[in-house]
C-alpha cells in the first residue's frame, strides 16, 4: 500500500465491506470501497453502508486478500447436481448382512 500522494497517479486500494446486521447473524458482504488504510476504510464503510442503522459491526478486508473462484469456470464448478443421485448418501442401499447401519 503506498502513502496517499506518494505516487503520481495515486489510487486508494479497494476494500471489501462486511456488515453484521444483528446479534446472532453473521457478517454479510455489502459492497466495496476505496480507502487509504484499514482504519479509514471502516469509517468510509460506516458512511456508505450503515447510515440507516443497518449494522452492529463492520469488517473490512483488502480486496487483494480475497481469493475467488474463477468466474469463467462457473459452468464446471457449479454444475447442477441433477442426474447425480449417486452424490447423495440415500442413493446407496444397505449392503446385505450389515445389521446396525
Amino acid at each position, binding site marked *: 500500500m503506498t502513502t*496517499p*500522494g*506518494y505516487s503520481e497517479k495515486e489510487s486508494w486500494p479497494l476494500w471489501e465491506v462486511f456488515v453484521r446486521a444483528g446479534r446472532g447473524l453473521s457478517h454479510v458482504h455489502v459492497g466495496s470501497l*476505496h*480507502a487509504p488504510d484499514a482504519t479509514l476504510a471502516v*469509517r*468510509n464503510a460506516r*458512511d*456508505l453502508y450503515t*447510515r440507516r442503522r443497518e449494522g452492529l459491526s463492520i469488517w473490512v478486508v483488502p480486496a487483494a486478500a480475497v481469493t475467488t473462484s474463477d468466474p469463467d469456470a462457473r459452468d464446471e464448478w457449479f454444475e447442477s447436481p441433477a442426474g447425480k443421485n449417486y452424490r447423495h448418501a440415500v442413493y446407496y442401499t444397505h449392503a446385505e448382512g450389515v445389521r446396525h447401519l
Partner: protein
Amino acid sequence: MSATRTADDVHGDIHRDVHGDIHGDVHVDAVELDPELVGAGGADADHDVAQYAQWLGDDALVLAQRLGAWISRAPELEEDIALGNIALDLVGQARSLLHHAGTADGRSEDDLAYFRDETEFRSSWLVEQPNGDFAATIARQLVASTYMHELYARLQHASEPTLAAIAAKAVLEVAYHRDHAVQWTLRLGDGTDESRRRMVAGLDAVWPYVDELFADTPLIDRLGDRAVRPSTLREPVLAALRDVLRQAGLAEPDLPPAPCGGRAGRHSEYLGYILAEMQVLARQHPGASW
C-alpha cells in the same frame, strides 16, 4: 430546512396556485419539524434560550453550508460522502435548534435560516472561514467538532429540557465528526511533506478564531445552568486539540486571537456570501416548498 430534505423531495415542484399568476400566489405549506428531529412538539423557548439556541443553530447551519460545498469536489468519492453526511447531521442539529429558537416569537426554522440578515446571525467566525484546500477544511473541522463535542456532552445535562434533548442526540453525531477530523489530521500532519505543509497552513488559518468560542456574555450569566458557560470549555477543548496535534507531530499555532464578534452579529467578510448563496432561492420564492 426544507431546502435540504431528502433527495426524493429535491426535485419536487414549487407549488403554484392554479388560479394565480405564475409568479405569484405560491402555496405556503406549513413548515413542520420532522418528527424524527428533537424538539418537535417541544416546549416554547424564552427569549434568552432562543438567543442561545441561535448561537448553536447558526454555527451548525453555516458549517453545514460550508461543508456542503465540498460535495462533488472532495479528493475521493468516499470523502464526498463523509463530508456530505457530516453536513447533513449539522443541518439536522440546526433545524432542531432553530425550531426551538423560533418558538420564542412564532418564527419557523425557515424564517430564521432564510429570512434573517447577516447582522442577525449569531454564528462564530470559525465556521465562516473559507473551505480552502482539504487540509484547511479538516483543520476547521477538527476545531469545530472538538468544541461541539465538549459543548454537547455538557449541554445534554442542562436544565433546559429541549436543549438537553437536542444535545443528547447531537453529541453522538459530533463524536463521529470529531473522529473523522482526527483521523485525517493524523494522516495529513504525519504524512508527506506536502500534506504536512497544508495541514500546518490550515491550522494557522483557523487558530485565531478559536478564542471566540470560549467568550462569556451577559446572556450566559442570565441562562445559568440552562446553558453551557463557554469559558468552561476552553481548557478541555484546547487539551483535546493539543493531544491530537501532538499525535500528528504538529505544533500548536502560536497566533493571537482575531477580534471576532459573531455572537453579537458582527461577522467576517465571508458570511454575507454564504448567506447570499444559501438564501437566494427562499427569498426569490417566499413561501415556496421544495
